[in-house]
């Protein structure tokens, strides 16, 4: 068992036995060596199930949305990207900082579980795409930290390269590319349900009246869903890449989210969501001298 996992267990044991929290959100091993899954612990006996490894993809801050009215304090383990989710939820008044005890884990980047399918434990596995361009491997908010700080190092440019490729295409080529993607969508809403920026109590996609989104699975409805979703998380996406990982159809959702982030930076200046809880989200404020290129 790795050192970080052991430390996590000690911290969780300590917090629970001293009643400082009554729930710990962490990870445990799942169905395969390349699967780690969210774990909810409220009994000291269960702390030895906690692990941290290169497959702990789930951004647990999502669960804080459900726990907004939790009666006592919750301890949560976060990687760098996940920690931005905590700040975002605080900014959106979904949770209060004092409700959560944040245990940060500097993250060296995770592996792609899909690439591990069929392999034996120990065989080389590709890096997860979502971690390739990580700029915040160290948690930006934490009460304590487990493990050593790590340096951000870009290990790939897959998403950025795809965005550039798309930008260079003609309108019709781009349209055809996205249509092919959206036609594949099965509308399972895994992307929405895994996303810490999707914190509405009732989503417009679920409402029968007014029926913004019909239930038929066709290109038009799917376009509506993905454009609305992308605009809704615009300026609030913390780049954890969970939507893209969760998508069973492997839609390149981060090529949407990161394009918007890129545009926001070009238009309104640098903005990384969930870094500074005091900073207003880019679509939630304005400057008098904002560009007016569309006039």
């Amino acid at each position: 068992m790795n050192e970080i996992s052991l430390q996590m267990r000690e911290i969780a044991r300590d917090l629970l036995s001293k009643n400082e929290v009554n729930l710990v959100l962490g990870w445990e091993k799942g169905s395969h060596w390349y699967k780690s899954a969210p774990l909810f612990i409220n009994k000291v006996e269960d702390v030895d199930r906690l692990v941290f490894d290169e497959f702990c993809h789930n951004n647990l801050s999502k669960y804080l949305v459900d726990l907004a009215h939790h009666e006592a304090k919750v301890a949560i383990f976060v990687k760098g990207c996940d920690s931005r989710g905590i700040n975002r939820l605080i900014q959106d008044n979904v949770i209060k900082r004092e409700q959560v005890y944040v245990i940060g884990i500097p993250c060296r980047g995770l592996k792609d579980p899909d690439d591990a399918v069929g392999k034996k434990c120990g065989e080389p596995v590709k890096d997860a795409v979502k971690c390739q361009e990580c700029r915040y491997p160290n948690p930006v908010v934490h009460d304590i930290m487990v493990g050593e700080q790590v340096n951000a190092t870009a290990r790939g440019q897959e998403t950025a390269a795809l965005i550039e490729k798309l930008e260079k295409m003609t309108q019709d080529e781009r349209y055809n590319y996205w249509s092919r993607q959206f036609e594949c969508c099965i509308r399972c809403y895994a992307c929405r349900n895994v996303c810490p920026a999707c914190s509405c109590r009732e989503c417009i996609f679920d409402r029968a009246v007014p029926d913004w989104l019909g239930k038929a699975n066709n290109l038009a409805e799917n376009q509506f869903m993905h454009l609305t979703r992308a605009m809704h998380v615009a300026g609030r996406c913390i780049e954890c890449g969970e939507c893209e990982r969760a998508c069973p159809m492997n839609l390149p959702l981060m090529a949407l989210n990161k394009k918007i982030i890129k545009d926001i930076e070009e238009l309104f200046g640098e903005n990384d969501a969930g870094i500074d809880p005091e900073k207003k989200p880019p679509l939630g404020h304005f400057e008098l001298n904002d560009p007016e290129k569309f006039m």
Partner: protein
Amino acid sequence: MSIDNAWEPKILVFACNWCTYAGADLAGLSRLQYPANIRILRVPCSGRVNPQFVVRAFLKGIDGVLVAGCHPGDCHYTTGNYFTRRRFLLMKRLLEYMGLEPERFQTRWISGSEGPKFQQVVTELVQDIKALGPNRKLRDA
């Protein structure tokens, strides 16, 4: 059915109640001619327009959308149009990234006294959209 010969674009204008709607009114009162292709939807503020209103309009058969409101500094609610500006600058880029022709979605500032500007903007918009032809990209078949 050959619709293309007789095709006339349908254009939706989200008009802010305080400026653009008054501007359109003035254009009417001044007997300024503009194409009959536009449908005006009055909104309390251009900031009321949600991105999904725009996408939905396209899906339901609109060929071009104009969001129009007060000039910066003139918002009846002080700052609404500044948010509009950011939101739709970003959304215009997103729609372009999706492969939509950028001319189909436009934002303009038209005040209550700018009847001629209203006439000019919608006339140009209709010309642009006519040149593009029907919207077939974001459309509920």
